[in-house]
């Protein structure tokens, strides 16, 4: 199975975590398995026929509040394959901040294959508000286009468009990594899995 690391970014209170929780909740069916782990959330999805019904797994890293005082560790960005940069469509000040997060991401992650999706959240609240008090959708869309980002507006509350975000990212990741699936029967790597102590004692020096 293909496995990818996806990180969340954006200012506090734009609803980053809610998007993930909605995604995990809504995509829960017999093909889709999820774990809310102590370390990160993982969620398995199955792509459509057009993408060979490929099953892939997201390892989703939440900021856990460490973004608040600019205290995200280098570990957070390392080897990220995709990022959701979230802003609040009802909070015009949150888009410029999202732009800063995009800059930060590009500085921290040198992988040019990194997929960044700009996500406007709280679409459900937008209907009740004057359009003048909202983030200008065309501005966000244009910024995304200029910077080669994916763009979606979602509602974590109603679930609107949430799965779409992850599916689109999944599809691109699949196309990027298709070739690797053929050669996926790799020998065990040089990394040691700490949850798998060796049970074979034949090489042991121990009595």
């Amino acid at each position: 199975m293909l496995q990818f690391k996806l990180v969340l970014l954006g200012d506090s209170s734009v609803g980053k975590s809610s998007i993930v929780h909605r995604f995990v909740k809504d995509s829960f069916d017999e093909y889709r398995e999820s774990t809310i782990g102590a370390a990160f959330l993982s969620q398995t999805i199955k792509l459509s026929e057009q993408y060979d019904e490929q099953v892939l797994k997201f390892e989703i890293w939440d900021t856990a509040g460490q973004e608040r005082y600019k205290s995200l560790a280098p570990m957070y960005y390392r080897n990220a394959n995709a990022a959701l940069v979230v802003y609040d469509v009802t909070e015009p000040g949150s888009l410029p901040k999202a732009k800063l997060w995009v800059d930060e991401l590009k500085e921290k992650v040198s992988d040019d294959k990194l997929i960044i999706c700009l996500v406007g959240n709280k679409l459900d609240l937008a209907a009740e508000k004057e359009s003048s008090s909202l983030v200008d959708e065309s501005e966000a869309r244009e910024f995304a286009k200029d910077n080669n980002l994916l763009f979606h507006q979602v509602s974590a509350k109603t679930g609107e468009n949430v799965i779409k975000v992850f599916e689109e990212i999944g599809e691109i990741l699949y196309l990027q990594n298709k070739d690797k699936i053929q050669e996926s029967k790799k020998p065990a790597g040089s990394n040691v899995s700490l949850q798998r102590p060796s049970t074979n004692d034949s090489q042991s020096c121990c009595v």
Partner: protein
Amino acid sequence: MLNSERRPSMAERRPSFFSPGPDGSLQSTSLLVPHLAGIEDPLPETTPEQVDVVIAGTGLIESILSAALAWQGSTVLHIDSNNYYGDTWATMTIDQLKNWTTLVNDKSSETRFYKDAKLYVSGLVSQGKFKSKNFGIDLSPKILFAQSDLLSVLIKSRVHQYLEFQSLSNFHTFENDNFERLTNSKQEIFTNQTLPLMTKRNLMRFIKFVFEWEKNTEVWEPYADQPLASFLVDKFKLEKPQVFELIFSIGMCRNLNTRTPEGLARIRRFLTSFDVYGPFPVLYSKYGGPGELSQGFCRSAAVAGATYKLNHKLVSYDPNSQTAVFEDGSRVRVTEKIVASPTQHPPNSGNIPPQKYEVHRLTCVVEKDCLQWFSEGENAAMVVFPPDSLKTGNTETVQVAILGSGAEVCEPGTSIWYFSTTQEGPRGDLDLDAALEAMIASILRESSEIPDDDELVQINPDGVSLVNSVKLGKSFKELVSKEQINFIMKLYYTQYTSTPPFDVVTPNLFDLNKSDKYMPGASDNGILYTSLPSGEVSYDEAITAAKLLYEKIVGSDDDFFDLDFENDEPDSKNNNKTMGNYDESAIADDDDDDDDIRMMDAEPVEFAGEMEI
């Protein structure tokens, strides 16, 4: 037993996690799914006005403590005056090391925890041939024994899922101007042609004994105050090469005075770690050592709800109003305790514990991959220079950890050499230089192309040329290579610590700053200072220190990482359905060029915590 002063645990404070039993009592503490406060709860609008614990410094001990407290249910504000994680345990880029060196050498600084930092950086870095950010250099490099308390905590807390580990099986001892690889398994002892039969027997007898040495008091007690070397010679008739190998390579002791019980414990540590995960005793984390682990524990603490603020400096603490004041003018009330690394002390402090012990370090990045020193498929090795093996006539060992680019800490074609010694004073640096010289001579010899000079090529009777004899170094010892070693970076420094060499932190260190001993006018009365990293090569001190501090704060260490993430999915209808469904061989990684297998959340967990072999 539960201490009556013990603060209620997170579980007890959050009764919703319990289902009342038939008699109304609360039941089942073992299957709690801890609350992921940092992810599930909305963030508070402002910095908390009151917290249970403030921790200053994000070194490994403080980070483990923070995670332990946060998961226990304490509210934690964790700060660091630096703009990076790790404090004295940090992993740094070359540019970060430049800043660090400047700060360390700043004469105006009130207290010194480092001395004599000398940094050389090759022009190749500023010219762009090598990139500063592609290097991760540890201030306090450490190796992780496969059988150790830190490793159990890494698994229990799931912090290991943030990290990637690799194995280290090559331990070399420098002797007679040559590196000998360690004979560290029973098989190797039996198959080693050079060992006389009697020696093999004696070694086997010792290895059998050492696994249960504590029980066999009658054997070692007469030697309790004697050096381990005399015990090994008297009781097991071992000879110098084996004694040195056991004490210095396997036990990783610093000198010949190591007493018998400590030495035996250290030898057993190595042997019981062997084959826990495979035929190697030691692991290290990719991308950097303790600096990475610190970040992992901090993230874990954040997931449990701790608040993080880098670039945040403590300026004073008032034990009467229990108020901590920070440089930006903000303040917080501390209901339980304030803990700080000595390096994060407020100005005008008066209670920092004395840092009596010196560790001399030399860290080099060299333009050589050093693959000949690693086992196949590995990216690291240890080299030990035992007493009197250097031209300086050293009395303390020099230990060297070598990390290659496969560990993702340096660029391809380079490696990092970490030298350290507990030899104090100017002799310490002389010993480090002598060890560096011996290493350079050896790597140049071993990596030299065989000259096109017939007399230098040895031919076996069967006509096969002995190319490998060059690798062993001996045959061409006199061959002086014209090649030079290029240094990309070279850093000398002396660090101070309150922890004696190879000892662990003792509880009384944390008793110093008690209310009856407050210093009038000091800005740090009531602050509990942590210990700085010692000269010990392993992580052994970290959990001991974090646990002692935890006990000081909570009242007992009973629930230190008393976590159970087995049921990672609280409300799912098909709990555990995902377990064991994955064919590990079918996992492909992302853009890797090495064959890593990521640790997976859904992998079978039946081995979790079972570290027995």
